[in-house]
């Protein structure tokens, strides 16, 4: 029997799972007939975890226990800008872990970002298992094309934690193009304009009968639909401050209300020319006065608010067109991906830029997961004639003296690719060579993303410059970077240590997998037969409506005329714990989970997952490295910020 492998679009805001069966791709809906689920994880007091649209509804009442937009943080170092920004915006606790990692602290428990994402993936795995009636252990997971190695590795780790063998980390725009062109026998050049919740990518592809070749991909990981919401939040908050002289940003509950109102208003502006936002109780002052917001925003006003954001996307498009050596006139089609591209203001701007209307026959919320499913099927031999030739989105660079870098593999180079550089020792009898590896387009090391610091040792001791170490940089079809080294004279593999990495160590991964944390999500069956998971009933396209509908009293909150009313909601409306469990709230809720395999603890074969060619990279903390430093790198008067290596300019 054919192997089952699903495609998962793990989005900043929403996640979607699809499967290709008998040559047809279907988006798998959850127990509540929703085709996408919010990428939100809510932690209950009893330690159980809720994922999806119902979890999203919890953010109003318990923002500190509800993690959204984890994708913005995955694979980042604690010192990065994005982490600081998230700390200002999200009510949940973001803390620093050893080795500059990032953890989320909820109810005094710490979670890594891959663990949070694993909970969302676990939910998708269970949805798929419900549909196929058997265990699902293989998946293709998509990421923004512009994701760097750290982010890709962390996403892959999330898959492992969720009990999935990740067949491929696939770029979202590539997946979208695959879904668009698969089996059509077309010969087209297309641009994929992918504006997600937190990232923007544009890819230019040439689609042939059986080959999908990415010509160029460019992006901005700091630009997404959330930024459009932020503009409305700022408008509301500034108005509130001007009127009441109280800043609602300082109150997590008030801030969540503004966020939800802004998102709803934004979505409503796709339908109506004008939206009235009415929140009766944004916050209550110390003297007991309840302060609210009344604000009307028109499409034209919104257009002004977000004008610069839209222009930023076209700067990225300019770059992609240039890198692919094409002009917009060479394009046969433009595909829109991501919820925010439903906004008429974006559709119009895209049409003006590309001088053609975007394709109407592609669902921007589902097309990525469908493409992932097609690729998953082809990787288990289910689908043929769809070969993807993708590229690496960023320059791969190595640190050189003076805090500078130089490229080893330039962006938009097709993958898989491998380049070898030869390094030599700097001092007599030097025992190790250290190399910093970066991704990014900047000469200054500090302006790029640091992938890791590698230390190579175990080569022959000899006078300086006599030892030559070949360091091989490989980018695999996942876009993941592998670094290995060999001693040129002996041909023996040098031992490699990653001395700085944002990744979880193998030991940590083992512990996490052993603790089966992800199984807390939607515990298949508790003794009394109740479910810990509930996904609220909602129309597939309107997650906001879903968020509003968990409590019948809240159903009236979203008025048909486009105005938004949050007056029904108060923190003390918090539903009793029992009501968040699915006790058959909808008919298929019970059916849906009773065929899920028990235990939930799928065994993971690490050997199988690890790349066979990848040297087993051990990891140690920076502290350990420093204490173990033999001082060989101390050179007199050297103020070199970069690793002390000399690059031998010769091709291998």
């Amino acid at each position, binding site marked *: 029997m054919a192997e089952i492998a699903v495609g998962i679009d793990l989005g900043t805001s929403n996640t979607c799972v699809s499967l290709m069966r008998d040559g047809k791709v279907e988006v798998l809906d959850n127990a509540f007939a929703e085709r996408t689920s919010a990428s939100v994880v809510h932690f209950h007091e009893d330690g159980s975890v809720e994922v999806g649209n119902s979890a999203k509804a919890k953010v109003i009442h318990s923002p500190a226990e509800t993690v959204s937009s984890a994708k913005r943080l995955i694979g980042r170092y604690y010192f990065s800008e994005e982490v600081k920004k998230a700390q200002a915006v999200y009510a949940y606790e973001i803390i620093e872990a050893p080795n500059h990692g990032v953890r989320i602290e909820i109810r005094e428990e710490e979670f890594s970002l891959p663990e949070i994402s694993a909970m969302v993936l676990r939910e998708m795995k269970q949805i798929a298992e419900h549909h196929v009636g058997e265990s699902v252990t293989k998946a293709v997971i998509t990421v923004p094309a512009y994701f760097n190695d750290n982010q890709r590795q962390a996403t892959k780790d999330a898959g492992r934690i969720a009990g999935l063998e990740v067949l491929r980390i696939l770029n979202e725009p590539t997946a979208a193009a695959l879904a668009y062109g698969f089996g059509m026998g077309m010969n087209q050049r297309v641009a994929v304009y992918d504006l997600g919740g937190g990232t923007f990518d544009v890819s230019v592809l040439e689609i042939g009968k059986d080959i999908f070749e990415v010509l160029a991909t460019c992006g901005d990981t700091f630009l997404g639909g959330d930024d459009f919401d932020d503009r409305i939040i700022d408008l509301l908050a500034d108005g509130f401050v001007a009127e009441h002289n109280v800043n609602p940003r300082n109150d997590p509950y008030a801030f969540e209300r503004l966020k939800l109102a802004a998102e709803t208003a934004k979505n409503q502006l796709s339908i109506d020319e004008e939206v009235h936002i009415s929140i009766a109780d944004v916050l209550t002052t110390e003297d007991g006065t309840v302060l609210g917001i009344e604000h009307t925003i028109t499409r034209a006003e919104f257009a002004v608010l977000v004008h610069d954001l839209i222009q930023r996307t076209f700067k990225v498009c300019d770059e992609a067109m240039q890198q692919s050596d094409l002009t917009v006139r060479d394009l046969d089609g433009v595909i829109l991906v991501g919820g925010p591209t439903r906004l008429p203001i974006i559709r119009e701007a895209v049409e003006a830029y590309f001088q053609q209307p975007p394709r109407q026959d592609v669902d921007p919320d589902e097309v990525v997961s469908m493409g992932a499913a097609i690729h998953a099927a082809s990787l288990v031999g289910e689908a043929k*004639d769809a070969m993807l030739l993708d590229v690496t989105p960023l320059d791969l660079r190595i640190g050189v003296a003076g805090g500078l870098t130089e490229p*080893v593999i330039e962006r938009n*180079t*097709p*993958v898989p690719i*491998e380049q070898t550089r030869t390094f030599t020792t700097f001092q007599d009898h030097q025992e190790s060579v250290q190399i910093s590896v970066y991704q990014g387009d900047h000469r200054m090391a500090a302006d790029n993303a640091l992938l890791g610091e590698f230390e190579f040792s175990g080569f022959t001791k000899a006078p300086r410059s006599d030892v030559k170490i070949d360091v091989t940089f490989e980018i695999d*079809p996942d876009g993941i970077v592998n670094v290995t080294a060999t001693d040129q004279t002996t041909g023996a593999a040098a031992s490699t240590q990653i001395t700085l990495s944002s990744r979880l160590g193998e030991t940590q991964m083992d512990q996490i997998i052993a603790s089966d944390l992800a199984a807390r999500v939607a515990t298949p069956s508790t003794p009394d037969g109740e479910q810990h998971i509930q996904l609220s009933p909602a129309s597939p396209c309107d997650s906001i409506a879903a968020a509003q509908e968990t409590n019948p009293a809240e159903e009236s909150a979203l008025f048909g005329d486009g105005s938004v009313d949050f007056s029904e909601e108060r923190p003390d409306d918090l539903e009793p714990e029992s009501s968040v469990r699915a006790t058959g709230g909808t008919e298929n809720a019970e059916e849906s989970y009773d065929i899920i395999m028990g235990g939930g603890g799928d065994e993971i074969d690490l050997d199988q997952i690890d790349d*066979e060619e990848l040297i087993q990279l051990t990891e140690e903390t920076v502290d350990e490295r420093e204490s173990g430093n033999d001082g060989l790198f101390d050179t007199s008067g050297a103020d070199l910020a970069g690793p002390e290596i000399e690059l031998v*300019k010769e*091709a291998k």
Partner: protein
Amino acid sequence: MSTSTIDALEITALSKIMDELDYYQLLNIEPSASTSDIRRAFHNSSRTFHPDANLDLTGDLRKQCRQISKRVTEAYCVLRDTRRRLAYDDKRANGTSLRIQIAEARNAHVERRKAERCGATPQGRQFHGKAETDLKAGNLAGAIQNIQMALTFEAGNAGFKAMLEELRERKKAIS
């Protein structure tokens, strides 16, 4: 997409001689191939050697196939880019190496162009500089003399030749 079309022996043989092939030979095209020929050859090779086209291969064969695939990508990456291809053709003509660092290939050509413009030898650069100064000062005759001097040190410098020709044209036009 299946390995049935490719012989295991073929993979092993190619992986053995891969280092002795230049990029054109590897892609099985003529050195005069057009960009679209190069692209077509890359697609054909990918259909055979890309890891996704060989999912049922295991062990050494899989490794060999992967190595070939990466080398094929490298060849495509160099040959499809005009600047890289020029730098590679130089290198190949000199017989120094059958491969080139993709990141350096672009710079190599930029450096060559810079050398063409300003000179590759200290004397060439010196007289070229003098010629530029003369030109700014309106001394056309001086400029011609100096660029001729520069050419005695770098007879093959196309940039110098072009400059000399242009200066002569201008002088002709004036007189």
